[in-house]
C-alpha cells in the first residue's frame, strides 16, 4: 500500500482532477494585483489571501475579547476552497445520515431501556463511567419522548487508500457551522470572481431548512395556536471562544440570542426576561454544555457548572420547551464507543455501516493493549470518553516519553482509546505567492427533520498546524477553508416549501429586547460618553501646558482643570502637585491612557460591551464601533511620548465617539436598543457637565469671568455664546447656555430634555418615580438664569452657586440608579439549599450571582 497522503487536486498520474479545474482557472484569471500597490508578478493568490485576511480582521472574527483576544492571531480563511464533486459529497452525506440515525438509536437506548447493556453489546462502564452520561436526563420509567439529536457534525479525513473516514463524531453542539457560513460569505464578498462560471451549491437553502425544522420542533400551544414558535439560541456569553459563531447563527436562523441569566422558568415553562415582561420560549438551540443548563439538577454541592436556569429540565420534561440537541447527547462522542458502531448498526438499524471510521480500539480489551505495545508508532491515543481532546501521535514521542505514557496506560487502560495513525490527504492552500499542498480535515454538518437527515452542501475544512493532534475540538485559531460542493447538472437543491407562517402583527415597540441587552447598551452609552468627556478634559489641559509661562488667569484655569481631572479619576492628587508642574501633568495623562490606566480600562470595557450587544448591531456598525477603538488601544500602548502623540490620541478618541454617536443615531431604531444607548449617554454627559461646571465656577467672584470662559470651553459652547452675545461675558447668559438651554446639545438642559423624551417613549409617561425626578431637575436648572438676573451682583451669586451646580452630578447619578432598578431587574443572588448532611449541621453553599 502506498502510504503517501493522497492529493485532493492531483490524481496518481499527476493530472488535475476535473472538479478542481474550474477553481484553478479562476485563480489564474485573477489580476496579479488587485490594488494600486505594485505587487510582484504571480502573487494573485497572495493578494487574495491578504484581502481575505483584512476582511476578517475588519469584522473582528476570532479576535473578539478584551485583552488576550485582541493580539492573538485570529482564524484565517484560505482563499482556496476544498472542492468536492457532487457524487462524492452525496455518498458522504448518505453515510453520515446513517451514522446520525445510528447515534440517535444508541442515545435513545442509553437514555431509555438500556437494552444494549443487558444484551452485552455495550460494556456498562462505557455508559456509566462516561462523564457525558447525564443521569438527570434519564428516567428509569420513561424512555425519551422526542428525538434527541437535531444537529450532528463529523470530522473526516481521507486516508492513503482514498477513502474518507470518520475521525470524530460531534453530537453535543456541532460547533463550526457558523464559521463555515461566514467563510463562504466572506469569500463571496471579497473574491466574487472565484465563483464565476462555477456550479457551487449555495448554503442558504440549508439554513432555511434548519430554520423551518426549528419552527416545527415547537410544542403545540395550548392557547393561541396560530403563534409563531419562539426560538432562542442559548450562549454562555461574550467570553465564550465561539461567541462570534453564536451571534452569526442567531442572525442566520432569525432567533433570539440569549444567555442563561436572560431566562427564567415559571410554572413549568421557559421565558425570556424582556423590557416588556416575560416572553415564552418554545425551542432552545443549546450552545452551552448540558450540565450548565439547570443548577437544581446538575448542581449538587460544588459542581460549579455555571449559573444555568433553575427548573429548565422540568420545563423540558414537561414538554413546554424543546432543547436541541437534548442535553446528554455528548455521550456518544466518546471515542471508546466508535469501535462498536459496526455491530450496533447491524443490531439497531439492520444495516451495514456505510461510512467507515478510523480504526480504533478501546484499550480495556487486553488484546488491544497488546497490539498497541507491539507497534506504538502506528497509533494515536485518545481519552476513552472525551471526544473533545485531540489525539496524541505516539510516533512523535521520544522513547522515554513513550515508555512513561505506556506505563500510565497499563495502570488504567480503560481510560484510553488507540486509533490508527493516518496522514490526512492534502489540498492546495495559498502559501506565500503560490499554492502548496497542505493536509486537510473536513467537518460536515447535518440537521434532522422528522427523522430525515440533511447535510449542509459545504462545510468547514481546516489545515491542522504541524504537530497538531487530530480529532479534538475546534482550536481557537488556525487556517480554515471554505468547502465547495459542485452540482452536477446545474440544478440547485432547494429546500422544502417554507413552513407557512401566519402574518405577523405590526409592532413598533421594543418588544423582546432582553433586559441584559438593554443593560449593556445603557452602559455602552455611558462609557463611550465618559471616554469622550475624558478626552475633552485632557485636551483642555493639553492646550495649556508646555506653552511657556502662563498668565495668572491661565494658571487658575489649569488648577480648576486639574481638580476636574482628579475628580474624574484621570489623575491622582500626587500626580498633580501643582498646576504649574507641566511634565507631571503630561505624565499623568499618559498613565491614564496606558495599560492599567482609567482610560485604558474604559476602552477595554467598551470593547467588551460592544461584543455583548453584537447581535443588535449591523456588520458595518460593529466595524465602526470596534475597529477604530482597537487602533486607538494599539496606539496608546505604543512606546511613544510627547505632546504631539497625546494630541493625536485624544483626537482619535473624539473622532471615535463622534462616529459611534453618529452611526447609532442614523442606524438604530428609536424604540429598540437605541433608547438605552441614548439614556446612558445623556445621564453620563449630564453628570460630567455638572461636575466640570462645579470646578470651573469654583473661583472668587473677582475671577468669575475666567471660570465662565472655562465653562463655555468645556461645554464646547464658545462659538455659540459669541454669536449670541458677542464679546460680553456675563454669568446669567453663560449659565443659561450651558445649564438651562434645551437646544444646546453640550448643555445640561439638553440632556435632561432628552432623558424626559426617552423615558416618556419607554414608559408611555405613566410610570411613577422616574419622570417626576427628571422634571424636578429641569425646573431646577431653568430657575438658575432668572435667579442670577434678579440680583445686583451676578458674579458674586454665580460664584456662590458653584457647589449647588456640582451637586447636580449626584442627582443625575440617582436617576441612573433609578433607570437600572426600573429596567434591568436586578435580582438578588441565588443560593443553593440542601448541602445539609443527614443527622448533621446544615451547610449552606452559595451559588454565585443570578
Amino acid at each position, binding site marked *: 500500500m502506498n502510504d503517501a497522503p493522497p492529493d485532493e487536486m492531483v490524481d496518481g498520474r499527476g493530472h488535475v482532477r476535473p472538479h478542481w479545474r474550474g477553481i484553478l482557472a479562476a485563480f489564474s484569471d485573477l489580476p496579479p494585483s488587485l490594488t494600486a500597490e505594485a505587487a510582484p508578478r504571480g502573487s494573485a493568490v497572495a493578494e487574495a489571501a491578504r484581502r481575505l485576511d483584512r476582511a476578517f480582521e475588519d469584522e473582528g472574527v476570532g479576535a473578539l475579547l478584551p485583552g488576550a483576544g485582541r493580539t492573538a492571531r485570529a482564524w484565517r480563511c484560505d482563499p482556496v476552497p476544498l472542492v468536492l464533486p457532487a457524487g462524492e459529497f452525496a455518498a458522504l452525506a448518505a453515510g453520515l445520515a446513517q451514522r446520525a440515525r445510528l447515534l440517535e438509536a444508541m442515545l435513545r437506548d442509553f437514555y431509555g431501556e*438500556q437494552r444494549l*447493556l*443487558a444484551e*452485552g453489546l455495550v*460494556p*456498562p*462502564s462505557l455508559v*456509566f*463511567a462516561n462523564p457525558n452520561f447525564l*443521569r*438527570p436526563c*434519564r*428516567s*428509569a*420509567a*420513561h424512555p425519551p419522548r422526542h428525538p434527541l439529536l437535531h444537529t450532528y457534525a463529523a470530522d473526516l479525513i481521507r486516508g492513503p487508500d482514498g477513502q474518507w473516514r470518520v475521525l470524530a463524531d460531534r453530537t453535543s453542539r456541532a460547533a463550526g457551522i457558523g464559521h463555515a457560513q461566514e467563510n463562504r460569505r466572506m469569500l463571496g464578498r471579497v473574491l466574487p470572481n472565484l465563483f464565476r462560471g462555477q456550479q457551487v451549491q449555495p448554503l442558504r437553502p440549508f439554513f432555511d431548512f434548519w430554520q423551518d425544522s426549528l419552527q416545527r420542533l415547537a410544542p403545540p400551544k395550548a392557547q393561541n395556536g396560530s403563534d409563531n414558535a419562539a426560538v432562542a439560541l442559548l450562549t454562555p456569553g461574550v467570553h465564550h471562544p465561539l461567541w462570534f459563531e453564536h451571534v452569526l447563527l442567531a442572525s442566520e436562523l432569525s432567533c433570539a440570542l440569549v444567555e442563561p441569566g436572560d431566562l*427564567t*422558568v*415559571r*410554572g*413549568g415553562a421557559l421565558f425570556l426576561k424582556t423590557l416588556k415582561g416575560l416572553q415564552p420560549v418554545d425551542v432552545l438551540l443549546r450552545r452551552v454544555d448540558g450540565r450548565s443548563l439547570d*443548577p*437544581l*439538577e446538575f*448542581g*449538587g*454541592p*460544588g*459542581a460549579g457548572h455555571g449559573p444555568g436556569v*433553575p*427548573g429548565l429540565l*422540568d420545563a423540558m*420534561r*414537561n414538554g413546554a420547551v424543546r432543547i436541541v440537541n437534548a442535553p446528554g447527547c455528548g455521550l456518544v462522542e466518546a471515542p471508546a464507543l466508535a469501535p462498536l458502531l459496526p455491530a450496533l448498526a447491524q443490531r439497531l438499524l439492520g444495516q451495514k455501516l456505510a461510512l467507515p471510521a478510523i480504526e480504533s480500539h478501546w484499550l480495556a480489551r487486553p488484546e488491544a493493549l497488546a497490539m498497541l505495545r507491539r507497534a506504538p508508532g502506528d497509533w494515536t491515543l485518545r481519552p476513552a470518553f472525551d471526544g473533545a481532546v485531540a489525539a496524541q501521535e505516539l510516533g512523535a514521542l521520544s522513547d522515554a516519553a513513550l515508555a512513561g505514557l505506556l506505563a500510565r496506560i497499563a495502570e488504567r487502560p480503560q481510560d484510553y482509546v488507540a486509533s490508527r495513525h493516518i496522514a490526512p490527504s492534502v489540498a492546495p492552500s495559498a502559501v506565500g505567492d503560490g499554492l502548496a499542498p497542505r493536509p486537510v480535515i473536513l467537518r460536515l454538518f447535518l440537521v434532522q427533520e422528522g427523522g430525515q437527515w440533511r447535510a449542509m452542501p459545504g462545510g468547514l475544512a481546516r489545515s491542522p498546524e504541524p504537530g497538531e493532534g487530530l480529532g479534538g475540538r475546534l482550536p481557537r485559531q488556525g487556517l480554515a477553508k471554505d468547502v465547495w460542493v459542485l452540482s452536477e447538472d446545474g440544478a440547485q437543491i432547494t429546500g422544502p416549501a417554507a413552513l407557512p407562517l401566519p402574518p405577523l402583527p405590526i409592532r413598533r415597540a421594543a418588544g423582546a429586547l432582553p433586559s441584559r441587552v438593554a443593560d449593556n447598551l445603557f452602559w455602552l452609552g455611558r462609557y463611550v460618553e465618559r471616554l469622550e468627556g475624558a478626552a475633552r478634559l485632557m485636551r483642555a489641559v493639553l492646550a495649556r501646558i508646555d506653552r511657556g509661562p502662563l498668565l495668572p488667569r491661565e494658571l487658575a484655569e489649569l488648577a480648576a482643570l486639574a481638580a476636574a481631572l482628579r475628580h474624574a479619576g484621570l489623575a491622582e492628587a500626587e500626580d498633580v502637585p501643582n498646576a504649574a508642574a507641566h511634565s507631571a501633568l503630561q505624565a499623568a495623562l499618559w498613565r491614564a491612557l496606558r495599560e492599567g490606566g482609567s482610560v485604558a480600562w474604559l476602552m477595554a470595557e467598551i470593547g467588551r460591551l460592544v461584543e455583548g450587544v453584537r447581535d443588535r448591531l449591523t456588520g458595518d456598525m460593529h466595524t465602526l464601533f470596534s475597529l477604530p477603538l482597537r487602533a486607538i488601544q494599539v496606539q496608546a500602548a505604543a512606546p511613544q511620548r510627547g505632546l504631539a502623540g497625546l494630541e493625536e490620541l485624544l483626537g482619535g478618541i473624539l473622532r471615535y465617539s463622534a462616529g459611534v454617536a453618529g452611526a447609532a443615531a442614523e442606524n438604530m431604531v428609536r424604540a429598540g436598543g437605541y433608547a438605552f444607548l441614548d439614556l446612558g449617554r445623556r445621564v453620563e454627559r449630564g453628570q460630567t457637565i455638572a461636575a466640570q461646571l462645579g470646578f470651573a465656577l469654583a473661583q472668587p467672584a473677582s475671577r468669575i469671568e475666567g471660570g465662565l470662559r472655562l465653562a463655555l470651553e468645556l461645554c464646547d459652547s464658545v462659538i455659540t455664546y459669541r454669536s449670541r452675545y458677542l464679546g460680553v461675558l456675563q454669568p446669567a447668559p453663560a449659565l443659561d447656555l450651558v445649564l438651562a438651554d434645551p437646544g444646546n446639545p453640550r448643555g445640561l438642559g439638553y440632556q435632561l430634555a432628552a432623558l424626559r423624551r426617552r423615558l416618556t417613549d419607554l414608559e408611555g409617561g405613566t410610570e411613577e418615580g422616574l419622570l417626576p425626578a427628571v422634571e424636578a431637575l429641569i425646573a431646577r436648572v431653568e430657575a438658575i438664569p432668572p435667579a442670577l438676573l434678579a440680583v445686583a451682583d451676578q458674579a458674586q451669586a454665580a460664584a456662590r452657586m458653584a457647589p449647588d451646580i456640582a451637586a447636580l452630578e449626584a442627582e443625575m447619578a440617582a436617576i441612573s440608579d433609578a433607570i437600572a432598578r426600573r429596567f434591568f431587574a436586578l*435580582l*438578588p*443572588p*441565588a*443560593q*443553593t*439549599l*440542601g*448541602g*445539609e*448532611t*443527614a*443527622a*448533621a*449541621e*446544615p*451547610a*449552606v453553599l452559595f*451559588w454565585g450571582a*443570578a
Partner: protein
Amino acid sequence: MRWRIRHATAYRYAEPVDIATHMLHLSPRALPQQQVLWDSVACAPEPARVATGIDHFGNRVTWLFLDRAHARFEVVAEAEVEVAFPPPPPLDTSPAWEEVARAALRDPGAAEFTLPSPLLPEHGGARDYALQSFWPGRPLLAGVLDLNARIRRDFTFRAGVTSIATTVGQLLAQRAGVCQDFSHLMICGLRGLGLPARYVSGYIRTRPPPGAVARLGADQSHAWVGAWLGPGQGWVDLDPTNNLVVQDEHVVIGWGRDFNDISPLRGIILGGGQHALDVSVDLSPA
C-alpha cells in the same frame, strides 16, 4: 413490620425569597420487600407547580416551584409502609469476593456502582481499610458483614463534626462522623475492591422498643449501604452506623451512587439572605 413516617423540613429566611425551585427525594419507593400503603408531600406556601417523576435509579422525585415572595418554606412528607427485608442468604452460598468483582463489570445493574462518583473519588486509604476484611477467596457476604462491624467499632458517632464537604480521607483521620460519612467510607472501600456498593437513603425507627438499645441517627434522615451479592443474588442492605443488617427497622426512600444522587431536599432560591433550617423525623410503628 408496618411503619408510619413523618418528615418535616422548615426553612426560615432572613429576607423574602422571590423564586424558589426545590427537588425532593422524600417519597419511599416501592420494592418487593417494601410496600408503600400511602404517602403524601405537603408544602407551604402553596407552590405554583408540583411535578413528580422517576429518576435514573428508579427513585421517586418531587419538584416544587414557588414564585411568590415568602419568608418561610415548609414541606411535610408522610407515608405508611410495610417492610420485610429477608435475612441475607447463608454465608456458604456467597461467592468469593473476587468472583463478584469480575461479574460486576458485565452486569448492567451492578457495574455503575463499582465506579467512583462525584462525592466518592477513588481513595487508597478507604480501599486499604476495606481490604482487611477481604482476604483472598473470602465469601463476599462474610467480608461485607465484617467491614460493617469494623466501622461501628472503629468510628465514633458524633453529630456536627462533619459536613457534606467532609472527604473519606478526613473521616479516616478523625475517626468520628455520622451515618452519611460511615456509609460513604464503606462504599468507597468496597468500590476500591471492584465491588458494587450503593448509598441508600431512608429512616430508622425513632424510639427503641421497651428495654432495647436506641438506634443512632434516628432523629433525621438516615443512610446506609447496599452491597451487591453477585449475579442472581441481588443486594443486601447494611447499616454500618448501627452494625445491622437491614431487616424491619429501616424504611428505604431510595438509592444512588452517593449522597448527591438522593439528597432529601435540594433547592435554588433567589434572595433569602441568611436562613435557618429545622428538620424533624419520626418513624413509629403504625
